[in-house]
């Protein structure tokens, strides 16, 4: 019963966030095309010769995801703050974790779509060719996204309340995501190089552990963080 109420809250928040993202026209489309733009900038900055680019490709894809993902996270809480809607949100009785869960869900949807687009663009622009090991590649991306979203949403819940959110969030988040970035890029490279499974296997296990740890940690920590 109580569980059903909480689940309803989770859905309500996720739905609200998605709705506003779609309404505010600069929602998904813009963030996605920004991601692609960043990808291209990386391509331009890393010089024209194809060899260097192919090596940089995976890193570029992840960086583009990271940089534009940050915006998405901030937006998801900005909605609350724009007209002081966070205070009423905190005024609702009942536990606070559904708020976090709802935001998490919304961002997860958002980012998964975005990554799909970025990867497609990366394949075309950097001439990546898809290896036979693509299923485990999918796994890597899934794990990477989860790690990204969990920490991103959590930190956004704090930073978005400070004025300089767009600066503060990446500042806190990026260092925390170093493991994700390293694991994701290295594993992806290994898989793209059609490498031996066990090579990327270690990285994948690392990613999984990372996700698990921080999923639990953030859910616990959120109750304290969100308090006024």
């Amino acid at each position, binding site marked *: 019963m109580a569980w059903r109420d909480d689940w309803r809250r989770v859905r309500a928040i996720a739905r609200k966030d998605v709705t506003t993202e779609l309404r505010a026209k600069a929602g998904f489309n*813009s963030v996605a095309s920004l991601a692609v*733009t960043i990808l291209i900038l990386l391509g331009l900055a890393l010089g*024209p010769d194809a060899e260097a680019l192919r090596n940089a490709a995976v890193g570029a894809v992840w960086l583009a995801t990271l940089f534009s993902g940050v915006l998405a996270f901030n937006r998801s809480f900005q909605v609350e703050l724009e007209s002081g809607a966070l205070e009423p949100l905190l005024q609702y009785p009942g536990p606070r974790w559904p708020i976090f869960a709802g935001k998490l869900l919304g961002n997860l949807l958002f980012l998964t779509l975005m990554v799909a687009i970025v990867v497609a663009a990366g394949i075309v622009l950097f001439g990546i060719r898809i290896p036979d090991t693509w299923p485990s590649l999918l796994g890597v991306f899934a794990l990477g996204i989860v790690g990204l979203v969990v920490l991103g949403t959590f930190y956004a819940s704090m930073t978005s309340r400070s004025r300089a959110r767009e600066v503060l969030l990446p500042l806190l988040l990026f260092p925390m995501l170093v493991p994700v970035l390293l694991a994701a890029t290295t594993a992806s490279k290994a898989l793209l190089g059609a490498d031996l499974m066990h090579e990327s296997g270690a990285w994948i296990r690392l990613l999984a552990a990372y996700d698990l740890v921080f999923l639990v940690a953030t859910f616990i920590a959120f109750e304290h963080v969100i308090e006024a």
Partner: protein
Amino acid sequence: MNPASERLRETPTAPPPRTSIWLAVAGFGAVIAAQVYSILTSPAEGDMGHLQKIMYVHVPAAWMTFLSFFVVLVFSLRYLWKRRENDDLIAASAAEVGAIFNGLTLMLGMIWGRPAWGVWWVWDARLTSTLVLFLIFAGYLSLRALVDDAQQRARWCAAVGVIGALNVPIVYMSVKWWRTLHQPPSSPATLDPAYTMGLRLNAIALLVLMIYFIRKRYEIARLEREVENMAEAAAMGGR
């Protein structure tokens, strides 16, 4: 401050243009005709075989892209000068159409590139600058989508349109140098005279089509404004 502000609130009194169906017929007809002609006449090209026929859309599309963005530039300037809403609407229509041709160029180019070069994409000057151009006007369009107040949207987009257009040659030059400073660009082979005629015909056909698209889009925009003007009549009338 703003020139001719008095007209700033003026909404067009002339009835919106009726784009005749014949223009559409002419456009599509010409395209089909030109295609048929050029496909029949052009010899299978050496290393690319009949694949090369993509060129008959790809290249004219590219030209139309440039043309329609030139239209955006002209009418944006004119809006800033005269502040007539029509100019803004035309610029917007041209931008949309241009973006579509731009996308078409990219698509066809990539489809062509795969077999021709073995890759979807090379960071060649022409390709890259086309892509950047596309991004610039994607930005222009998303700005349009984002601003609610009609006059603000018009002014902002006019400014962005002009400044964006100013940038196009600079972008092209910079990307060209960027390439040439390293290795000779793997840019598409310049044309064999055997193809020029077909190319010209297709260019003309697409030109007609482009004009039709822009006019049609403009007509729609104007009709939307008409609705609002009727609402005004209703609102202000009962006095």
